[in-house]
């Protein structure tokens, strides 16, 4: 059973797709289907809405998420009341979303459900922690890598990445684009002492000195960095950006004299929105990037079919991907 044993070593796991229709839901259904026969307590939630039976954007058939008897799932009030599954409400949390409060429930039957979940990273962490109350062994987060989601899936211990023809219909390009995301996921984490400090910072740009102290640069956004140029490197060469980082920031840093010693720290890999060319030219010149929260990549799944009808060769894609990533890659459709 590919990668299931690995998955079980984590307390929390997110399954994210690089694009809609990259096979995330099939991947999730595969994992849940395998876990159902194991003597493990599983909880499931989502960031953002998921589980619609048809994809609203492309109007393609989308597999629903199938939950098995005994599993715990979390969904907002509106979706909970629309469910078909027979389930028992364990608690109604204080976390509010646009679809109502989050309901924590246990599946009494096995059926398909509509999932929705915590609106931001803070609530997501709280919900994962809350699952301890119900003796949950593994919490699975149906995730999204999107600027639109305020909740970052990177707070889970492990991650499964779904990629496929919907992301790019050209094998070399698809491999390159996926490799970039994998490189970001594998960025090293900062030392524990600094991590503890960074976990409490939600916004702002800081210089980090050799003793891991944070110095607020009082810069509103990375677009204003030019103005704080003199201050940035007055405490050393480390810079922590709590929010999103774009091409501008990477280009700005690349052009600095002390370039080779610069270390950029971000909250987690989802906060990097630079394009691959800009990112790699920063790294090639010696720039270092580290994250405050790192997630471990458990597996990469591919979906060779795109909603526009492209169908790549599964074997060819898998081989190319494995070669580039140096880790096992699975075709979700063939995982049975």
């Amino acid at each position, binding site marked *: 059973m590919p990668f299931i044993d690995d998955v079980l070593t984590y307390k929390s796991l997110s399954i994210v797709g690089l694009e809609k229709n990259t096979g995330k839901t099939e991947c999730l259904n595969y994992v849940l289907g395998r876990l159902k026969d194991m003597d493990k307590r599983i909880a499931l939630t989502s960031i953002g809405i998921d589980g619609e039976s048809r994809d609203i954007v492309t109007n393609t058939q989308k597999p629903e998420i199938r939950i098995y008897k005994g599993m715990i799932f979390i969904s907002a*009030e509106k979706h*909970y*009341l629309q469910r*078909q599954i*027979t*389930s*028992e*409400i*364990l*608690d*109604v949390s*204080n976390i509010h979303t646009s679809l109502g409060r989050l*309901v924590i*429930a*246990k599946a*009494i*039957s*096995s*059926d398909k459900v509509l999932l929705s979940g915590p609106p931001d990273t803070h609530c997501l962490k709280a919900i994962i922690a809350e699952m301890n109350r119900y003796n949950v062994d593994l919490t699975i987060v149906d995730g999204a890598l999107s600027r639109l989601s305020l909740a970052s899936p990177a707070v889970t211990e492990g991650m499964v990445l779904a990629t496929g023809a919907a992301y790019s219909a050209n094998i070399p390009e698809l491999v390159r684009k996926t490799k970039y995301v994998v490189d970001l996921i594998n960025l090293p984490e900062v030392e524990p002492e600094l991590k503890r400090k960074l976990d409490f910072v939600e916004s702002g740009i800081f210089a980090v000195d050799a003793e891991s102290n944070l110095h607020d640069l009082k810069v509103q956004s990375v677009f204003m960095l030019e103005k704080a140029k003199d201050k940035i490197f007055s405490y050393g060469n480390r810079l922590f950006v709590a929010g999103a980082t774009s091409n501008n920031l990477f280009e700005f840093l690349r052009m600095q004299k002390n370039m080779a010693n610069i270390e950029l720290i971000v909250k987690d890999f989802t906060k990097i929105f630079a394009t691959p060319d800009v990112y790699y030219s920063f790294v090639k010149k010696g720039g270092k990037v580290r994250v405050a929260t790192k997630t471990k990549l458990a597996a990469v799944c591919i979906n060779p079919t795109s909603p526009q009808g492209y169908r790549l060769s599964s074997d060819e894609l898998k081989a190319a991907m494995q070669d580039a990533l140096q880790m096992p890659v699975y075709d979700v459709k063939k995982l049975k």
Partner: protein
Amino acid sequence: MQLKSALTEISGLRYMVDKLDIKSGLGHRVLLASPFFVSQKDVLYQLQQVAQAVDAFNRSEHKETFDKVAIKLSQVRDIAGTIKNIQKHLTLNDIELFEVKSFALLANEIRDLTSSVEFLHSKLPNLNKVIAILDPENTRIPSFYINSAFAPELTELRKKLASVEFSIEDLEKTNTDSNKQYQQSEEIRAKITEIEDGVRQNLSEQLHGFASELNEALVAVANIDILIAKAKQAIYERLIMPEIVADTTSYSGLFYPQLKELLELEKRRYQPIDVEIHKGTCLITGANMAGKTVLLKTLALSQALCQYGFFVPASSAKIALVEQILFSIADEQSELSGLSSYAAEMLKVNQIVQMAKKQHPLLVLIDELARTTNPTEGRAIVSAVANYLNGCNVKAVITTHYSGLSTQCRKLRVKGFIEDSKDATITVKNIGDYIDYSLIDDDGSNVPHEALRIAQILGVDADVISEASRLMETNSKQ
């Protein structure tokens, strides 16, 4: 006025409310909706409740009870909306039924826990009958779904549905036509939904009979939360129960909790005040920085706390109830309304006079009346307002720097600089230690002239100070 609106009006009140250790959102909502009690019976009832809570909380044998109740209170959810739906004969959905069940279980647990604290225990109705409706198997677990205990036929139908679904999956795997099974599953689902809806209707109907008990319990749980928080605050902040009297309000050891805490943090002295407020007007004079504004704020705060059912910050207090607290305090912002500070003040004072005219019992507090206009007319305004209010059914306290006022009303003065402090090195930081904040009777003929001395302590340029002193001397010679 509800406590919620008073928070922005009466300074220091938000500090007291924020410091309350209320455990539930429900408690917060009910607290903020507290009315300003005006009848002696209501205020006394509120205060006696707090007194009972303080007494119970102070007894060591109840410590464990209060700890356990606190945990239960923090789990309580506000189900006011759901109760409204029950009253309106609406059918509740599963989430609402869950809320009612878990609330009823929690309320009964709190009821059991408080069995040794009679006045709390007796507030809570027994919700056993509600629990029995929603927990027919008597598991006492708050989780909820429509199981076969509500409708035995569900067991069979759900089993059947599962097996049909299973066969659909099997057929789909082999690409065999599953239309028949699909239809069958839809039919079973429809039947299940119908039965479940019937159960929801039935449960909602049964709960309708207990709507008032549920409401009573909800208010009781909120009040228990509020009372425990008020009692804890009274003990921690050293607040006391005021005596409610008919005529003269009097305090000894009155203090402003926020300022007292701040000074204590800096290890500095806080001087509580003794004061009596009779019907009519009382004029207060005193040097700058002598605490006149704080005194007015403390009087407003204490009166408000009392009439919202809190203990008050003093070592003893007799309070005459009023219908409203009205004040004009210097730091109010008027720029935004486009009025000069003088215009804004006059409009405010006029409002107060209009209210006083109706002969309602009021507490009126005016800080440095007419301070922003010329002293000749200012004096006349202060005298006129003081004289007018003196004849109304109000307790008015007006601070002023004007001397030689033509009024017969009562006058007090803040003692001000301690005499033997003349030689001490007084700075902006320690100035408070050299001021005696106590109030003494005064004829008002001579107000303290310490403005220059204080300006000097504040570090105002010596050229200005010496020129001012010279002018003062020339004036007095003339």
